């Protein structure tokens, strides 16, 4: 009798403990949801961008190693994000301010969504035998990352606006409006050759570094702390 009673107690305790589980993270700020803090969002975003840059660097170095042995022979690549004005040194970046910096980040991220997808498709088909299987997977990965990062930074901007840190001048930026189509050959929906592959990888490596750097500056100007 006592044994049965003890078993019942134990079961009840277990059930209660399982009920008190972790609170789900809600994306729309629903009631009762646990939303991460701004610092957490910053950390996540910076981590994501750092990883993205790492993968793109690997892809680029692989490509250069196997396809173009000497980088000095490469012509001057043109990136389709050439039109986006980005600060190129520290003073300019600091002078830009948070709102503009956030806008630049969002623009960059928006400009790379489609091209990376095209790159992945081209690499997976790979009629030129430039890439192996793992490289095309990486291309897919960074393509997904760009999309996620863009959403994340947008949410972060919203949160910053809510907390008063960010002004209201940052509006929604559409991808088509950012990039002048003339300088971007990839919107031709044609097939990409090796040169195109190389240019894309080269340009994205640089832009991902910019994104990461700008996010770090943004974080350190918004939330100065130990990590800066």
């Amino acid at each position, binding site marked *: 009798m006592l044994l049965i009673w003890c078993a019942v107690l134990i079961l009840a305790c277990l059930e209660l403990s399982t009920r008190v589980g972790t609170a789900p993270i809600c994306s729309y700020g629903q009631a009762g949801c646990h939303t991460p803090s701004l610092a957490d969002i910053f950390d996540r975003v910076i981590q994501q961008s750092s990883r993205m840059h790492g993968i793109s660097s690997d892809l680029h170095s692989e490509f250069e190693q196997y396809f173009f042995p000497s980088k000095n022979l490469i012509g001057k690549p043109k990136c389709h994000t050439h039109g986006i004005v980005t600060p*190129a040194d520290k003073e300019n970046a600091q002078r830009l301010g948070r709102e503009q910096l956030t806008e630049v980040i969002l623009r960059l991220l928006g400009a790379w969504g489609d091209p990376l997808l095209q790159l992945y498709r081209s690499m997976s088909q790979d009629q030129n035998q430039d890439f192996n299987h793992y490289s095309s997977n990486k291309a897919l990965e960074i393509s997904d990352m760009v999309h996620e990062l863009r959403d994340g930074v947008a949410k972060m901007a919203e949160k910053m606006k809510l907390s008063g840190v960010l002004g209201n001048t940052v509006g929604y930026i559409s991808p088509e409006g950012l990039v002048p189509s003339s300088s971007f050959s990839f919107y031709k929906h044609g097939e990409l050759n090796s040169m195109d592959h190389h240019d894309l990888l080269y340009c994205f490596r640089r832009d991902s*570094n910019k994104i990461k750097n700008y996010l770090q500056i943004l974080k350190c100007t918004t939330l100065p702390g130990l990590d*800066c």
Partner: protein
Amino acid sequence: MWRDLGLAVLVLLSAAVESNSTSPPGKPVLLSCRSPEKETFTCWWEPGSDGGLPTTYRLYYERERLEGVHECPDYWSAGSNSCFFNKTHTLIWVDYYLTVVASNALGNATSDIFKMDVMEIMKPNVPENVTLLVVETEDSPYLHIRWEHPRNTDTESGWVTIKYELRIKQEKNNKWKEYMSGTQSHFSLYSIAPGGVYTVQVRCKLDHGSWSEWTNSTNVKVPNYVQNERSFWILVATLSAIPFMAAMCILIVKRENVKQCVLPPVPGPKIRGVDFHLLMSGQSEDSTNALIINQNFPLIVGWKDQMEEYLIVTENDIGPPSDASHCQKRKKSLIIPAGFCSDWEIQCKSTHIQNDCAGGTKNETGNFPKNNKSLSGESLSYMEPSKLQKQQCLGQNFVNTEATDPSPLNYDNAVKPFTNSGYVDIRKHVENTQEVNVKQVDYSRVEDVNGDNVFILNNKNLAFNSSGYMDFQRQEEKLSEDYSRVKEVGSNNVVVLQIQDMSADTKNPHATGAHKMGVCTELINSEYIDTIPAPPLM
């Protein structure tokens, strides 16, 4: 003319020699460029041969988003054969195309184009002020390592992210152990060996750039005190273990004594009057007789170191007992343990009287009572009190003594050898011995007591019981018996007994008095008590 021609040839030759040592410069090579903090950068080249003439080197660069060809802004800040680009001339995420041109009087030489992006050439300076500290906590000490970011590096604006790495080596090993520190400029190393010397080096990198050089080695010695403390306790434990071990050894060596002390032997059961050894030796007759006899007269047996002398004074015409059976029967007499002692003048000594019925031996003279006159070779009567406090009973005292020698008195003296007791068996016999199935025994009947003398007048042969004690027992009801000391033996088969007035607790060997009746007192100081009911005389 020939002389002029020779001079001309000489001049031409000298000119030719001179012109062979000069040449346009060799092609310089751009080695590398480096940006320590992502705000400036420096490039180095290696000059080719200078061709024997003074050669100048110039660096030209083209840059993305910048029109025209520009020259290096600073040739001197970074040393020779270098070009330093300061902050205003440095842009990140743009491509630079560099060339170096070497020129001398005879010509130029241009290096290959060197394409670079500042993002790719980042390599910071070494970290600075590496300090080591041994933090001594209660449980265990640990090593705390601190350093500072390299000079000129701005880590606060977020423009660059520095990551650190350190490596630690113990003095004995030659192997470095590497640890990542992330963005922290301190590190703690636990589980350090006391007394060890540790060497630490730190390096860092910016973003995804290259690692810097390692710092110079910094050493620290961990103090040994923790080990001393431990060794102190080890010493204490060892010292305390030595007396403990000694005690254990002593205990083991003396384990018998310890056992006796802790677990004393439990005395086994003992039956009074039964000689265990006698039992074991198989003389069952004696033992059973002893048991039977022991009803009223507890018997202590087994006292080996004291012989019991048993005197049976008989008075009869029968010669010295020659048959063994007779003797044997006489053996069955009372045995008084040797514990009896009296303070008489009779020496309380144990005598060993051999009863050799076959041969006959002389009685040992050890225990002749003083007052007894020793007969010369005749039947003697002496008692061997032997720590016996005799009770003296008057009345019809019979002293039964035996002598081995043939006596003119025709005493049948047989001295029974018994263990460790002196004892006079005064056997009573009744005239009507037919009541009891007794054998013939020689007894002398005390006819009269006069004063302190007992006169034995009768020389009757009295029945002797097969069991002396039995006889005694049966007879005791009829006669009040006492044990008397034979004073002297007369020539006419007269034994003079000395009556003693004994009390239970007084040791008065010479107390005499007129006693009509024997006083039978209990024998004291012995386990053997003659409970002879006798009217107290006193």
